[in-house]
């Protein structure tokens, strides 16, 4: 066998090489084709929604009037989630990378990863059955004492099924993503920078402020953007928690809707033009998340030589 393959360069091994590398390349190209196909088929199936007469679309005022309130609702929910999750996630990441005792650190990291493992529908059920009920009195309090702010305008929802509750559930879901990415970057801070800061007499917090955070800034930004991408596209938490309605500024009344939840709630029973409208809404969501993710990835690649978040 050995002698034949040595003397015969056209043997089976050579063909195997070609087939194997060809298969590998084909698999890679298939992924590109799938991503292209996602865009293509969404566009094809969505076209009727754009060309149909305005009064046939749900709401009767055309696709644009239908889509913009739920785009705004999606952004509101995602922003609430990020405002809550970002500081906590950075704190947790710092705790695991710089504060927790060495031996506990990896175990604690695993505990936070468990948060990411819990399926989204269970978060939705938890938010609807437990969190909404528990948090409703707090909304009453907010409406009474901070009601002059448009976002806390009363009367508060008595069930607690509001966009703020949905945002809180979303924040729990994006927390592990931001945490695990920022933790990796914090751990990559050059040891010498940290030790130099400590040797100059800095306290631990000053060391973090001077050495760790500046080093990790691009990584934190991109981690937050990836969290934003997840929060924008998350479906179940909103579909189960929010009792949806028209766009309102108040976060503690029922109302508002997100694209993903709108699709999930209506698609199974939809037919004809409604399917096209919902697929078009999905296309809008796809474009938004694609943009957010590409910017995040671009930031990471630009700082690739410094950070480990690639």
């Amino acid at each position, binding site marked *: 066998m*050995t002698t034949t393959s040595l003397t015969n360069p056209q043997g089976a091994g*050579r063909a195997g*090489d070609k087939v*194997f*590398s060809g*298969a*590998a*390349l*084909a*698999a*890679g*190209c*298939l*992924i590109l084709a*799938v*991503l292209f*196909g*996602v865009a293509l*088929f*969404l566009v*094809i*199936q969505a076209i009727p929604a754009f060309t149909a007469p305005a009064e046939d679309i749900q709401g009767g005022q055309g696709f644009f009037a239908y889509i913009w309130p739920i785009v705004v609702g999606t952004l509101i929910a995602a922003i609430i989630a990020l405002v809550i999750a970002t500081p*906590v996630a950075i*704190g947790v990441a710092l705790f695991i990378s710089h*504060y927790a005792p060495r031996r506990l650190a990896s175990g604690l990291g695993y505990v*936070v990863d*468990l*948060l990411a*493992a*819990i*399926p*989204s*529908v*269970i*978060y939705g*059920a938890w938010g609807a*059955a437990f969190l909404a009920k528990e948090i409703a009195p707090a909304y009453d309090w907010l409406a009474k004492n901070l009601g002059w702010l448009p976002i806390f305008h009363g009367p508060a929802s008595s069930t607690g099924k509001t966009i703020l509750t949905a945002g809180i559930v979303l924040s729990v879901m994006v927390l592990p993503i931001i945490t695990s990415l920022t933790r990796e970057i914090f751990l990559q801070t050059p040891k010498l920078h940290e030790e130099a800061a400590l040797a100059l007499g800095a306290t*631990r*917090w*000053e060391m*973090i402020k001077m050495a760790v955070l500046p080093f990790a800034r691009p990584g934190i930004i991109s981690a937050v953007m*990836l969290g934003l991408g*997840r929060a*924008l*596209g998350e*479906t*179940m938490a909103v*579909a189960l928690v929010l009792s949806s309605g028209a766009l309102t500024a108040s976060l503690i009344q029922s109302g508002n809707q997100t694209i*993903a939840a709108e699709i*999930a709630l209506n*698609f199974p029973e939809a037919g004809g033009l409604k399917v096209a409208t919902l*697929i078009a809404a*999905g296309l809008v*969501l*796809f474009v938004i*998340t694609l943009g957010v*993710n*590409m910017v*995040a*990835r671009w930031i990471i690649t630009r700082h690739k030589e410094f950070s480990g978040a690639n």
Partner: protein
Amino acid sequence: MTSTLTPARKRSALTKGQLPKFAPYAVLAVALVLGAAILALIGFNAFGWGIVSAILFAAGLVGWSAAVEGSRKAKDKLATCLVVGSFLIALLPLISVIWTVLVNGIPGIITPGFLGTSMNGVTGVYDNKAVEGGAPVLGGIYHALLGTVQITLLATVISVPVGLLTAIYLVEYGNDRSVARAITFFVDVMTGIPSIVAGLFAAAFFFAVVGPGTKTGAVAAVALSVLMIPVVVRSSEEMLKIVPNELREAAYALGVRKWRTILKVVIPTAISGIASGVTLAIARVIGETAPILVTAGFATSINNNVFGGWMASLPTFIYTQILNPTSPSNPDPSSQRAWGAALVLIILVMLLNLGARLIARVFAPKTGR
């Protein structure tokens, strides 16, 4: 406060101007007592006690430190309190979710026939009887469990070869070519595709190719593959990258072809990491609800054919039982079934996560040291 707690023994000049070692414990004790006292005035509950005590603890420790040690040390203490506090806050939802699922799910899961029967023929009439007359809650998750296993299995069969081959291309053949860089970039972008968009893609694809309204388990499997492939590629790529180059070079030096080197040397070395990555990817997609909702519909009876007919799955079962209870007037039996299914799903996901860790440890290559 400072004077009463200062230890009586003489202190060395080195530790002057520092808080004594027992300071945090003393402040914690005072904070707990004070917190209990405040809560007793406005009505006691354990959650409020924890919050009030934590705030009192942070304020007390930072204030004391500012008085004795100066502002820099005080700021350091404040940062420590905030960082530890944020970790504890992050634990709250985890504990709360698991507790809620356990408490609500156990009654469902111990109902006889819960794991072995489907929802076929179970109507609101039976649920009303169960609430009024104390009859047992009928119906179970067998059809959903079966559907989840079939859909996930098919998705794995599609994703693993594609994902693994792509990872091999990127690591072994890519050489930083433009194709390889494009694939890397778009795989990263793909990880961010919202799950519902993946479902819509699969639905739109099959609507266009097979016919409008095509909803089967296979469509759902395609949707899940879109979500699963990038995860498999990323984890396998990482694992192939850490295979030492010396192993490849040793194989080449013996005259082994590249493809045989990859199959016989590189992959066996990395197999533990690849297998655990695949298991984690399965754990990720097994709980996906939205893509299955728009691609496989929801069935109430057992469907053994992935390629024909609507199919139930655990996540969509939970979703429909909560949102559209079998008996709208008495939603309790439905919510009991939903929580039971949630418990089963969470156990499945945790087992897969645990399995991934075990695989990584048990099949790790022997380092010879």
